[in-house]
Structure formats: C-alpha cells, structure tokens
C-alpha cells in the first residue's frame, strides 16, 4: 500500500487553543502533588534516618511500597479502589494530585535522606559543640547545606512527576493528554496533536530545568 502523508500544519496550529485548556490541570496535578510530596519527603526522609526503629520502619515501608508500585496503579487504586473503602467518590483531580504526592513523596524521601546524610559529621559536631540544640543544628546548619545538594535530584523528580501526570487521562482528568485525545476523536489528526502535546510537556519541563539551574547557581554562590 502506498501511503503518502502530509503533515497538516493547520490541524496542528488549530489544536493549540484546545490543548492549552489541559495545561492548568497538568500544572495543578504536577506541582500540587509535588508540593505535598516534598513535605512528605522531608518528613519520611528524616524518619528514615531516625535511630528509633518504630519511626524508621514505617518510613521504610512507605518508601518501598510507593516506589515499588506503578504510579498508574496508584492513581487507579485511589480513584476506583478508595471509594469502596470510604463509601463515596473521589474527585479525579484530587486523585491525581494524591497519586503524584504519595509517589513523588517516596522518591523525595530518599533524596532528602541522601542529602542529609551527605553532610559531613563535623558540621553536626561543630554546631552541637556551640550549644545549638539538635533541632537548631538541623535547621540552621545541616538542612540549608543538604537542600542545596538536593536541588538537582529534586529537579529530576519534578520532571518525572510532570510526565507521570500524562497517565492520568485514564481517570478522566482534563489534563494535556486527555484534551489531546478528545480533540483527536473529532479531527483524526493524531500525529499533529500528539506532537503539540509533546511540545507542551517539553515547554513545561524545560522551564522547570531552567528555573532550577538558576536556583542552583544562586545556591552555589553560597557554597
């Protein structure tokens, strides 16, 4: 069969306004989820290195479970499974944010652990020897240094989570991929539309990379 294909620029361009309506959802799920994931990550990352076993073990369990299962299964569980337990529906947007939160939270816990453990023992000893409490030592000495070292890995995780949100079209949130699919259903211009969808993801992830590079450079001045 002889297929000649013409890239339809018109179809690509005219899909943009419709696709753009998906971006707020993609951003909300990604950054909402990541913000919560960051808080989870700080908490569980620190519990993970606690000398107290009954604090450490739940943290290890959480990290292993949510790193070891696919984010798609997690969101399906939250959206379709959880309602059976709580006896009411879960909003698709909430389910998406929650899935990114618990999933990225598991990875960020490990990033936090690695960052904190990478700070030389002498930093803690010096701050304690000055009379700082353990909390003060962490807050003013360990954390600021650890956070700087974590920035590249946090950026990576941010990009991964942004891309993960593309899976959430399955639960019907109107994010980028979902909007693309709807548009294609009426225009049949899959190639053009998915290319536009891909470019929009790229625009978001590149902006994040750039922002983090600036943050890192600012941080390096302080090293």
């Amino acid at each position, binding site marked *: 069969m002889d297929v000649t294909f013409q890239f339809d620029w018109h179809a690509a361009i005219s899909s943009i306004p419709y696709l753009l309506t998906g971006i707020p959802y993609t951003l909300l799920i990604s950054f909402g989820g990541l913000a919560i994931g960051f808080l989870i990550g700080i908490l569980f990352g620190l519990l993970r290195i606690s000398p107290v076993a009954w604090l450490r073990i739940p943290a290890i369990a959480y990290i292993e479970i949510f790193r070891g299962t696919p984010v798609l299964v997690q969101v399906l569980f939250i959206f379709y499974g959880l309602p059976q337990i709580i006896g009411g529906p879960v909003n698709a947007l909430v389910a998406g944010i929650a899935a990114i939160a618990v999933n990225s939270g598991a990875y960020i816990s490990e990033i936090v652990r690695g960052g904190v453990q990478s700070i030389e023992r*002498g930093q803690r*000893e*010096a701050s304690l*020897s000055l009379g700082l409490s353990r909390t*003060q030592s962490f807050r*003013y000495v360990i954390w*600021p*240094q650890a956070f700087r070292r974590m920035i590249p890995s946090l950026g990576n995780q941010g990009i991964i989570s942004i891309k993960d949100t593309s899976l959430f079209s399955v639960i019907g949130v109107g994010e980028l991929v979902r909007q693309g699919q709807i548009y294609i259903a009426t225009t049949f211009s899959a190639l053009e539309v998915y290319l536009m969808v891909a470019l929009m993801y790229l625009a978001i992830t590149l902006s994040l990379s750039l922002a983090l590079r600036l943050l890192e450079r600012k941080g390096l001045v302080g090293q």
Partner: protein
Amino acid sequence: MIDIKKKPGAELIVRMEKVNKFFGSLHVLQDIDLSVTHGEVVVIIGASGSGKSTLIRCINGLEEFQHGHIEVDGNQLLPNGKSSKSLQTIRTEVGMVFQQFNLFPHLSVRDNVTLAPIKVRGTSESDAIENADRLLEQVNIADQADKLPGQLSGGQQQRVALARALAMEPRLMLFDEPTSALDPEMIGEVLDAMRELAKAGMTMMIVTHEMGFAREVADRVIYIHKGQIVEQGKPEEVFDNPQNERTQSFLGRVLKH
C-alpha cells in the same frame, strides 16, 4: 587581648572520675581520672589511636562513655549519654576547635561567629555582630568577615573557628589537633592566637603534636597510652625527665626526627 569573663565558682572546672569508654570490644579509655582547674592549660600528647580525641570529646558529650563520671563546671555527665539536660548547658560553656575546622560553609565568616550567640544565648543581632567583629579583629581576620569560609586559607579558617567558639564566651576551650590539617606555613598564626588566649587566662585542654608549643604554653602535660594516663606533670618534667618508659620511647620518637 582577649578578655575572659570569669565567673566565681568551683576551683575545678573539669573532674573526670574512673571514666571508661569502649568502642565495641575496644577499651578506648581506661579508668581516666583527670581534674583541670580554672585557668589551667593542659596539653594531651600520645600516639595515634591512644584515645586523645575520645578523651576530650567526652568532656562536651560528643562521645558517650560507659562507666565513671564527668563533672564540667558543676554540670554532671553520666554514662551512656544519660545527661541530656545538662548536655546543652555544658556545651554552651565549653568551646571546641576541631582539626578540620568544621566551619559552616553556607554562612559568611561573620555569620559563622554570630549564629550560636544569637540562637543559643539570645544575643541581639547587633550585639552579636559587634562582638563577632571584635573577636575577628583579635584573631587578625576582620577583613575577611563577609567572605565565605571556602574562600579562606586553612590558617584563616582555623582562626575563624577559634573566634566562633570564643563568641559563646566559654569557660573552657577544647582543641583537637588544631594545626594538624594546616600547611606548615600556617601553623604559626594559629598557635599565636592560641598562645594569646592562654595568656589571657583561658582554661584550655589541647591535643597536639606541636611539642615546642606544648612545652611553652602548657601548665601540665599529660601523656596517654592505649587509653590510660601513664604520666603527667609540668612540661619540663615530662619532656626533659620522663619517668615512664613508654613516655620515654614516645618522646624519643617524636622529639628526635
């Protein structure tokens, strides 16, 4: 001159009684009995691995010990770290200078010095800065106050570390090989600052391999071997006329070269 605020109090500032410490099965400190009086400069010498660092780190609770008792300026340190209440009190009264400086790399030199007074003592920022600048002046480093530690030489960093510890107005200063990580040409400037401090009357416990300096500033030299104090006395007694044969052979090795 660095001025030292002396509180009236017990004549003894450190009293260690039958202190024993183990790292696993290694008996690092064995029945250490050691008292230090106010204003005294005690230098601790001994071979690598003999327990010098461990000994002084027990005094500010950076290391726990298993048996015995330590009293620092009237505060009790108990075995196995069971002294959490007095630990922070002790640490605010006891300054420490480390071999690797351990300055906070994300803070300016001045902020390194003001951090603890502001956060621990509740000193106002302006007072803390004024005091920091005065201390930095005393260790000849006032012009570096706005730099980050990483931009300074080792000798300069160690003098900042000294100023940082002094900013808490400690009653006792611990030094763990403060010049061992320095290039030879920078050792002098750090020893000068310490000499100044000793002259000002600071109580100091110093672990060092600088025997010339030890002889000059020490009121008492302690030789420790395999976790035991085997000999102590005035520097001229220990250096010129050591009684214990282990001290003799150690000094024979380090003084000859």
